[in-house]
């Protein structure tokens, strides 16, 4: 950090914003996904790409506590039984973090394919948990629709996130 106190304060605030931006933008994405556009279940599908992306490429910005908070927000925004969101998102975060060494070096297409696998697992886990908590078997079609939505949303969101990631790395390289 540089000498004068004012410049140091600004750089510190900048650093805080950089640390907080991914989780905040994911929360904002969740809230915007519940605007009624005629697509049911958009919120749960919109939560998966940010959690996966930031867990793989910048895990410091998506700590488990932020993932837990996103999961609880996802459940509270919808009418799902509480606990489905945190569990599936924490599982995605944990597995993506473990696979980080392999995934961070792959091309975009391979990462997208890996994400499709994660989204399918999350859809199946969400279905199983909903069945367990509601004690009745829900139809599997919404889960498949959620998987398709998440896989379709990933490229656009990943493009935006990677631009942001590059900007943040540039800022940190300079500072």
């Amino acid at each position, binding site marked *: 950090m540089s000498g004068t106190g004012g410049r140091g304060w600004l750089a510190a605030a900048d650093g805080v914003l950089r640390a907080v931006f991914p989780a905040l933008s994911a929360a904002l994405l969740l809230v915007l996904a519940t605007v009624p556009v005629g697509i*049911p279940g958009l919120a749960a599908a919109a939560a998966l790409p940010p959690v996966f992306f930031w867990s793989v490429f910048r895990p410091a910005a998506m700590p488990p506590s932020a993932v*837990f908070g996103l999961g609880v927000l996802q459940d509270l925004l*919808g009418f799902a039984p509480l606990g489905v969101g945190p569990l599936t998102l924490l*599982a995605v975060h944990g597995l993506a973090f473990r696979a980080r060494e392999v995934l961070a070096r792959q091309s975009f297409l391979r990462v997208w394919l890996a994400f499709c696998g994660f989204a399918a697992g999350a859809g199946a886990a969400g279905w199983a948990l909903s069945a367990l908590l509601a004690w009745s078997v829900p*139809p599997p*079609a919404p889960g498949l629709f959620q998987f398709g939505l998440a896989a379709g949303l990933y490229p656009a969101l990943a493009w935006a996130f990677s631009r942001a990631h590059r900007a943040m790395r540039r800022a940190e390289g300079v500072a």
Partner: protein
Amino acid sequence: MIRLSIPLRQALARLSLPLLIAAAFAVMLLGKADAVLVERARMAVADLLSPLWAAAQEPVAAVRGAAREAGELWGLRAENGRLREENERLRHWHATALSLEAENALLRRQLAWVPDPAPQFRTARVVADAGGTYARAVLLAAAPQHSIRKGQVALDERGFAGRVTEVGSRSARVLLATDINSRVPVVVEGSRARAMMVGNNASRPRLQHWPEGQAPREGDRVVTSAEANAFPAGLPVGLVRWSASGAAEVELFARLDRLDVLRLFDFGLSGILAPEAVARPEPARAARR
């Protein structure tokens, strides 16, 4: 900040994920154990975000309106022909309805009929999709001093849409008729057979439990029945359609994927709600009066 040694900090970081997974299980148990707490948390989040959604409605509604206009311009001629034919049919029914109304008034005078009180209604705007993946519900924005209560029936301009399940201080959640937990007692108008309309998260709820030998016919009109004091009778619901797999389904009049404004009718009926819901019909609000 407490200064921790680096190995300790690393150990804590590695521990946080299992701890939070355990916390997720704990939250799951809490959700099953204390439904009222979860409901209050849900409505607190909805109240907090409701102004944001109401503000986002304008641009979204503009875009959807533009898309709808484009679609309508595309099918203008066919739509015109269909409307002309429907107009002819409706003129005929208008004449029939006028004569029936006159006959009705005459018969009422004969019987010294006491009319039902006109139902009170309030209109609320749909601001968010509040269902998630395995539920179908919408969120309504309400003024701070609203009088929406649990159990009120919500109607589209064309027919029955759902019921209010949760109420906050600035918003209310309506469970739609297509949700898997929605069970509505109905009457098939052709045969006056009672049946149950059960949602299954698809676009058409299923019709079940009609009496033996009175299977509903394709195209019969379905209205709500006054069974068990849970619903006001006679509200239009939809038409019977038999699916390809042989199940009776109801094609709802209400357009649930394009809800803009819902009318909430308070008929004063509270049947088949949990006891604690009826004991506390007022939403939790800071005591100001």
